[in-house]
């Protein structure tokens, strides 16, 4: 959205925005917590409010939007192939901007031994389950990794009646923002264990517990739980470029969290608008 707003303000006329979901806004639509917009709108908003407010600005830009449209191919000749309820289409463009955000790192991307029972989620998936679908994925929860989404979900699961036993972080420092540790963990008495490595996941059908090691002392221990939430990093989503064997440049651009992981959506917006303006003024 931000790139389109920037490009439109710089005079670019023919802009098409493709979104695979029915609604614009991306991950903001499941971020019901406050902490957004202080830099861009000078006001503290929830993620959903930020999306709604920015959408109003976006609507004024008069950009053509195709929702429920899944891009499955980009070619080096700058052609985009997408499927939508009306069929499959191919469009060609002078500029293609990937604003595809990030994916979460999963348990499979770490090397944690153990079984593969039910009850293992990424924090963002749990967030979607709770906030969009109203499903709380467990009762006794351990959060692995201290990224912001993990901290936010520790609080969210607590508010929904689950018991969050601990947040385990393999590093000797917090990954997320300090303010999130205070208002999501400290306010609810949830312990944060730094330099703690998860060494095994246990359970047959459902998660029954984990083994973990305090890397500072070498001491190992077990903790019983039925749910694990992983908040262990984000990976910019650029599979479309990788599949096409294309590097950014020559009219192919990457914006927002697909470019690099931003702490604040406000910076994502500002970066996107800046990139958009450079396209509108004839930059590469």
């Amino acid at each position, binding site marked *: 959205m931000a790139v389109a707003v920037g490009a439109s303000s710089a005079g670019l006329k023919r802009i098409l925005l493709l979104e695979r979901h029915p609604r614009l806004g991306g991950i903001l639509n499941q971020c019901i917590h406050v902490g957004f917009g202080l830099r861009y709108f000078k006001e503290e908003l929830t993620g959903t409010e930020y999306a709604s407010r920015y959408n109003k600005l976006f609507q004024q830009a008069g950009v053509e939007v195709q929702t429920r449209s899944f891009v499955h191919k980009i070619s080096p000749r700058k052609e985009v192939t997408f499927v939508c309820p009306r069929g499959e289409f191919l469009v060609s463009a002078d500029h293609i901007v990937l604003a595809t955000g990030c994916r979460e790192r999963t348990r499979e991307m770490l090397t944690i031994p153990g079984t593969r029972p039910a009850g293992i989620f990424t924090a963002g998936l749990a967030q979607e389950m709770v906030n969009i679908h109203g499903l709380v994925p467990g009762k006794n929860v351990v959060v692995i990794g201290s990224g912001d989404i993990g901290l936010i979900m520790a609080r969210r699961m607590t508010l929904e009646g689950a018991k969050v036993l601990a947040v385990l972080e393999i590093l000797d420092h917090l990954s997320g923002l300090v303010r999130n540790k205070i*208002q999501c963990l400290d306010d609810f008495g949830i312990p944060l264990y730094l330099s703690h490595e998860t060494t095994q996941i246990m359970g047959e059908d459902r998660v029954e517990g984990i083994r973990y090691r305090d890397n500072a002392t070498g001491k190992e221990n077990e903790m019983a739980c039925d749910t694990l939430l992983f908040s262990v990093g984000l990976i910019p989503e650029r599979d479309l470029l990788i599949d096409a064997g294309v590097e950014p440049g020559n009219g192919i651009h990457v914006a927002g969290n697909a470019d690099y992981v931003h702490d604040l959506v406000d910076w994502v917006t500002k970066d996107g608008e800046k990139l958009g303006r450079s396209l509108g003024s004839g930059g590469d």
Partner: protein
Amino acid sequence: MEKQAEKKTKRKKEPKPLNKDKAKRYTCIVCPACCDLETDGVEVNGARCPKGEAFAKQEIIAPLRVITTTVRSETSKGVRMVPVKTTCAVPIALIPEVMKQVKALHLSEIPAIGTMLKTGSSSKSVEWVVTGELD
């Protein structure tokens, strides 16, 4: 060079004297700058803005937080979770009571963003505002 150094020391505020028996340290959560604050309830050191000073003075009396959650709505199109936040920050100690109230609330339509909702009885009621647009 000397002049620059002089400017820098001038810009940095002298810490105000605090009542050491009452003084407590906090990390400000108003914005992502996360200032390190120290306050005795009267004076505040370390805040880069007035919001941080107000935060520290409130934090030492009774910490307040805006609560965000969802309200279940059974609409003709299916179940929707309506995102809401409290219109005022509430004391941390009251969070379980506030959550109990909002969990008892059930809707049958999708309210527009900005719609006000009320939970609880008149003496302990909490006001909420809808924060999202749903289809």
